[in-house]
């Protein structure tokens, strides 16, 4: 269980005109159940990524509290792993060595490390590419490697920061399907940042809609679509269409109120 309670974050910028303050998040409260898939959607610059980094423990927050299973977050922990928008694969390491990276930091012995990394590469369909370097792979394949690296440490919470934002449309749909399959098999809590309404609804149990800066929670919506979700069926479901339209209106309203 992930509880985000009245979290606020203000960045201090020291520029030419002295220190300026940038309020990124204001009073954000979200409660996420175990093994739930939650999408967070909002306009660019609404602090979605900041919120994710705060939950990961990378960024300190200055108001409120983050609790995971009742314990306060004070830094990164083995119960969470991030999948990054730009993949963040180390270019000097092969795909296998990139997946092993997360395991090295957990002090796993070498053979166990390699075996685990290979296992997860197989699960994301990259078994034949372990000796390739990231730049030799397509964007979609690089993100599969990023996903394998995160899954390999066996976190209970997967934090995904617009993970499919930099791949082409077809690959994106394919990755979404694969992610749902993996999520059903691996039984993880997923917090998924996106700015695609279609993606948010297709994947999630609930969608959190955020306002422009400073990011607040505008609405939290249930996604009443059955699982497993078959893409063509789901996307033609009137409930899917209604919900994406509703989110679009909600985002528009939030933007209008902002100006």
């Amino acid at each position: 269980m992930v509880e985000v309670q009245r979290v606020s974050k203000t960045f201090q910028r020291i520029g030419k005109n002295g220190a300026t303050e940038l309020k990124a998040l204001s009073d954000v409260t979200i409660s996420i159940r175990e093994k739930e898939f939650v999408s967070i959607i909002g306009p660019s610059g609404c602090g979605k990524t900041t919120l994710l980094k705060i939950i990961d423990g990378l960024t300190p927050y200055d108001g409120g509290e983050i609790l995971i299973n009742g314990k306060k977050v004070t830094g990164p922990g083995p119960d969470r792993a991030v999948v990054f928008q730009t993949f963040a694969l180390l270019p000097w390491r092969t795909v296998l060595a990139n997946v092993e990276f997360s395991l090295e930091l957990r002090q796993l012995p070498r053979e166990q490390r390699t075996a685990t990394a290979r296992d997860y590469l197989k699960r994301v369909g990259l078994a034949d590419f372990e000796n390739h370097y990231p730049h030799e792979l397509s964007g979609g394949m690089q993100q599969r490697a990023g996903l394998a690296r995160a899954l390999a440490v066996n976190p209970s919470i997967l934090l995904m920061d617009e993970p499919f934002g930099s791949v082409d449309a077809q690959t994106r749909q394919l990755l979404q399907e694969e992610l749902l399959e993996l999520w059903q098999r691996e039984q993880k809590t997923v917090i998924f940042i996106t700015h695609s309404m279609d993606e948010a609804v297709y994947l999630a149990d609930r969608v959190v809609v955020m306002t422009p800066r400073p990011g607040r929670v505008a609405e939290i919506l249930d996604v009443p679509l059955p699982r497993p979700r078959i893409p063509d069926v789901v996307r033609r479901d009137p409930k899917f269409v209604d919900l994406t339209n509703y989110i679009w209106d909600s985002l528009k309203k939030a933007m209008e109120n902002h100006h």
Partner: protein
Amino acid sequence: MKARISVNVLSIATLAVLWEVAGRLMDTTLIPPLSNIASAWLRLLMNGKLLENLVMSLWTLAAGFFLAVILGVIIGVLMGRFRPVEHFLDLYINALMSAPMTAFVPLLIMWFGLGVESRIAVVFLFAFFVIVINTMTGVKQVDRIFVEMARSFGAKELEVFFKVVLPAAMPAIMAGVSIGMGRAVKGIVTAEMLLTLTGIGGMIMQYGSAFATDALFAVILTILMVAMIAMKLVKIVDRRLTGWKAEIAIE
């Protein structure tokens, strides 16, 4: 690659022929024909003089360069990682980076005397600053997302440094080391010409003042060859350490 090599061979052959012809036509000691230079080179090689001096020069070069790499990388890393260190030192490093190092030779003689220490110090000074600046720049330019990723997976400061920052900065560091090597060769010849007439630099001064142009050219060509081999060695190390970067650049 093959075409490239044959053009290189053609280029050298053309120069050699022109040189030989020009030398014979002009018939002066100022431009000796290439064949004379070759026989002077053989003579110096046979009587052991060239090798003896070359070994001496190379040893000094290696010592000064090694120190410059070790200290240069350490200082560069500290400057790149810690703002206060950078602000404390960058003024001097930038000033000395482009200052003519020969100006410091008299000072070095006073500090270290006329022995090998002074020559090592000259080599060091020639190579050091460019390595510092390149290392610092490389460390500063490491993509933040890599550092963030490592922290997110629980990396501690030292792990972030050795597993992410250092390998990411390695191409820039090696670029500095490579330029530093070129400068180090200049440093050793300068030191041997200006300080005590030893090594290959000393041979240049000796043959130059004796108008032994054939031997002089033989030494100069030897220095060019040494410089080329030294650069090649750096390139081999560079390939081993940062081959991944070269492959990305090709695409």
